[in-house]
């Protein structure tokens, strides 16, 4: 049978998907064990035991200085920045993106500006943001918004602009005004695409969050990783990175489920 025709059953798919991850974990363990056999104090490839040990301190013992559980304080701070940043970006995208896509005069006015902002590497703007907005939360959230929103806006604007012309004409023959075309034709059809755009924006949003935290912060997942790097604390860095990956996967899955629940018509399902 040709490989292009081979379908994998559900159970097998789980097995096949898990295999490379298990292999990687095994390779890591073997390499770590080898290094520890040569040097019991090795810090580069920590064994699971030492990871659990140092993480349990961060997870369950309050920090003597701040009195907080460090791991949870970091997670909360990072998720809050990410949430506010993505929330503002989504709101901007809804308003600006749909107006750009649906209204030619708005497209002519704002289109070049949005394109211009979108091509600037956001990290290059970070110094400006820190100078203008200080080193607090605002600058970090602003970096996420500036990094993520223009791309999302362009995506939604392009999607709305590519709605079949027939639909827009049809809506007008049904008596719809510009506003009614926007809220009854453009907006609902942009929603599934918006969720898709958020999913794609999650990756860059994490990048900007970690960068901002690495440079100036006193709490956050990215801050912690860059802080303990000074002590070669791979036993903290690796669990933190795994936790970030887990959070990102959870968000992605949640958005996918949400889209299927709210907009079944967009997923070609027999609902």
């Amino acid at each position, binding site marked *: 049978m040709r490989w292009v025709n081979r379908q994998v059953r559900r159970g097998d798919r789980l097995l096949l998907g898990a295999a490379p991850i298990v292999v990687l974990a095994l390779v890591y363990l073997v390499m770590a064990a080898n290094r520890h056999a040569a040097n019991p104090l090795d810090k580069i490839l920590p064994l699971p035991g030492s990871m659990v040990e140092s993480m349990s301190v961060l997870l369950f013992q309050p920090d003597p200085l701040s009195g907080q559980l460090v791991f949870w304080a970091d997670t909360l701070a990072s998720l809050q920045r990410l949430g506010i940043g993505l929330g503002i970006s989504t709101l901007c995208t809804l308003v600006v993106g749909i107006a750009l896509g649906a209204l030619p005069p708005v497209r002519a006015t704002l289109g070049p500006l949005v394109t211009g902002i979108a091509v600037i590497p956001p990290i290059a703007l970070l110094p400006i943001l820190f100078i203008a907005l200080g080193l607090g939360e605002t600058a970090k959230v602003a970096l996420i918004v500036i990094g993520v929103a223009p791309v999302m806006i362009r995506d939604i604007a392009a999607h709305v602009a590519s709605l079949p012309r027939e639909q827009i004409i049809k*809506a007008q023959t049904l008596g719809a005004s510009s506003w009614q075309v926007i809220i009854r034709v453009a907006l*609902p059809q942009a929603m599934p695409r918006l969720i898709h755009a958020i999913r794609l924006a999650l990756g860059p949003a994490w990048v900007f969050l970690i960068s901002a935290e690495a440079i100036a912060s006193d709490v956050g997942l990215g801050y912690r990783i860059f802080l303990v790097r000074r002590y070669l604390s791979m036993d903290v860095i690796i669990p933190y990175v795994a936790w970030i990956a887990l959070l990102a996967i959870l968000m992605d899955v949640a958005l996918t489920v949400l889209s299927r629940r709210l907009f079944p018509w*967009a997923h070609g399902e027999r*609902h």
Partner: protein
Amino acid sequence: MSTLLSFRDVWVEYGDRIIIEKLDLDIAAGSFVSVVGPSGAGKSSFLRLILGQEAPTRGSILLDGVPLKPECGPDRGVVFQRYSVFPHLSALRNTMLGLECAQSPFTARLFGESRRKAEEEATAMLEAVGLGHSLHLYPAQMSGGMQQRLAIAQALVKRPRILLLDEPFGALDPGIRADMHALIRGLWQEYALTIVMVTHDIREAFTLGTRVLALDKRRHDPHAPHRFGATAIYDLPLRNRTEPTPPSITIDAIGNN
């Protein structure tokens, strides 16, 4: 029969390309006009003119004696070959949209009593096109024929003065197409519609229409083919059934008095 739509010396030009030249036409209320012609002979431009998507370069188009605004409006309904229905709305909501837009300018949604009324009206219209059992299906769950039925119901619920059909049955199977012909013929008689249908199918044009317009270029210059536009080269009234049989001998709205 009274004239509903008249073209007075209408020209359509894009730059130095002439698409339609010197078109003079009167379309009577209650007629079913089929428009045929080769590709590029201005059939779509003709439809866009009536739809208001495009303004004539010269000349004027009058609807009920009033110049037509170059913008689409609820007095002219349309059914395209594809993309006429909204994929994110069920059949019922698709049909209700026209009623909601008219009655609720800000939210374009109805609530309570007015919503129930709109639902009733839309349901009745869907039943008239044979979709009474599929009120809550989404377009993606419908066959091509059902989608076109829905598009027709959606347009008719606004009671347009003119219904424009742009190759409405071009993408359908022959069997389904025959059903749709019967449906549109029935609706035309029942609602006393004025229909302008653009089609590629000459047989369809003659079976359905009470009048067949053939658009093509009258003259052809081989050195500058774009300098002559199309116009109505044949205008055939099909006299054997110019009008639907009046349902009774009393005076009615179509002018059979």
